[in-house]
């Protein structure tokens, strides 16, 4: 296993550099990504999942280019979008979860059974026939998580996955994540959610400005955020 390998990643959107010179080799089981609004976290998540090919550099997982080889990506990496409405494709909960499994080659019956098992795992068996558009925002987030976890990817990239979840659901989910073998790459604004993580990447203005164990990175990050937050000059606001 070689994990996620980012080599000198650069991404330019609408003529503006959004990521520049990001390099990291992620082999730790739990990696957190922090940074202010607009610092490029979501863009980096997309690059890792192979949804965007970087304009410069190379992104690979276990040696394969996820943007080029979508079939390999299907088995290797799952991504949970920041906005669940952007992720849900199907009208019912069961179909949403089963879809990824049929995409992986499972027969429809087997996929459906696996989808039900996933729902049961979270005590949400009764959600199966529910209309996805009728779920609350937090329920949609949980659905997206279940849909991706059911596919058992090697790497799970999560873009602020807990922002709409109530505390019991969040704790239940974190416990579940503790138990899975997949490598987790999680974006969050809340350092509290990174307890027990092995490594933290801190993005600022599209560049990696810190990379190391939580003890080394998070205190500095929090202090910096507080300092910026204490300023009255709105020019320092993100963007």
């Amino acid at each position: 296993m070689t994990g996620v390998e980012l080599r000198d990643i650069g991404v330019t959107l609408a003529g503006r550099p959004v990521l520049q010179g990001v390099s990291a080799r992620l082999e730790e089981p739990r990696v957190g990504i922090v940074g202010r609004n607009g610092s490029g976290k979501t863009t980096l998540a997309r690059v890792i999942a192979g949804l965007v090919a970087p304009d410069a550099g190379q992104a690979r997982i276990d040696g394969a280019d996820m943007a080029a080889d979508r079939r390999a990506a299907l088995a290797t990496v799952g991504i949970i979008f920041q906005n669940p409405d952007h992720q849900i494709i199907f009208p019912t909960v069961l179909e949403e979860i089963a879809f990824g499994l049929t995409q992986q080659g499972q027969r429809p019956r087997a996929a459906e059974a696996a989808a039900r098992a996933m729902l049961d795992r979270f005590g949400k068996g009764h959600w199966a026939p529910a209309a996805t558009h009728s779920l609350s925002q937090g329920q949609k987030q949980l659905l997206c998580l279940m849909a991706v976890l059911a596919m058992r990817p090697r790497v799970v990239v999560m873009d602020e996955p807990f922002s709409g979840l109530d505390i019991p659901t969040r704790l239940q989910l974190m416990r579940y994540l503790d138990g899975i073998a997949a490598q987790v790459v999680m974006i969050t604004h809340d350092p509290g959610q990174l307890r027990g993580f092995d490594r933290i990447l801190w993005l600022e203005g599209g560049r990696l400005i810190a990379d190391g164990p939580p003890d080394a990175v998070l205190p500095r990050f929090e202090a910096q955020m507080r300092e910026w937050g204490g300023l009255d000059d709105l020019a320092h606001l993100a963007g």
Partner: protein
Amino acid sequence: MISLISPVETWAHRIPAGAKLLALSALTVALFLTDRPAVLAAATLAVIALYLSAGTAFLRQGARHLRMLWPFLLLIALWHGLTGQAQAGIVIALRLLAALALANFVTMTTRLTDMIAVLTWVLSPLRRLGLPTRAVTLAIAMVLRFTPMLVENGQRLALSWRARSPRRPGWRIVVPMAALALDDADHVAEALRARGGILNDIPDGRN
């Protein structure tokens, strides 16, 4: 369509979708073959009995779905009544009511996945001709997913407008709605890509 699916599990849920759709087609044709009000009235009663067999709650829910039909039925009956063809009016109204109630019954008791499986099977000759039928069935699922979302987008925009304006939004939200729809289309494309896109060599809806 999907929001119509009944939360109450009935005996009809357990009948294969193909059988139900076949019966629906046959019975609908039969309804159009007769012109006798008495027969059509009996057929309508039979459909009501069918709903009742699934419970009163189910009947009430079905009636709610069909409520928007009343003005049309009334209009048809009135029109024919005024033009002196009361019997023809009753025939058409009863026939429509029975046929639509029957279709609604099937919709309420059949999961979308199963409908899509039947459709995939019906389309299978096309697949043998080399046409990608999986894209068709995926498209249907997506229309069902995104129609309520479009409506919601519109309502959300209207709310957002009203929160900041004393006037009603009216046509002014049409352009932002279109922009939102395009944006949503981008996001779905990405969501599909995140889960492998449309791969044609994977098993389709048939089990």
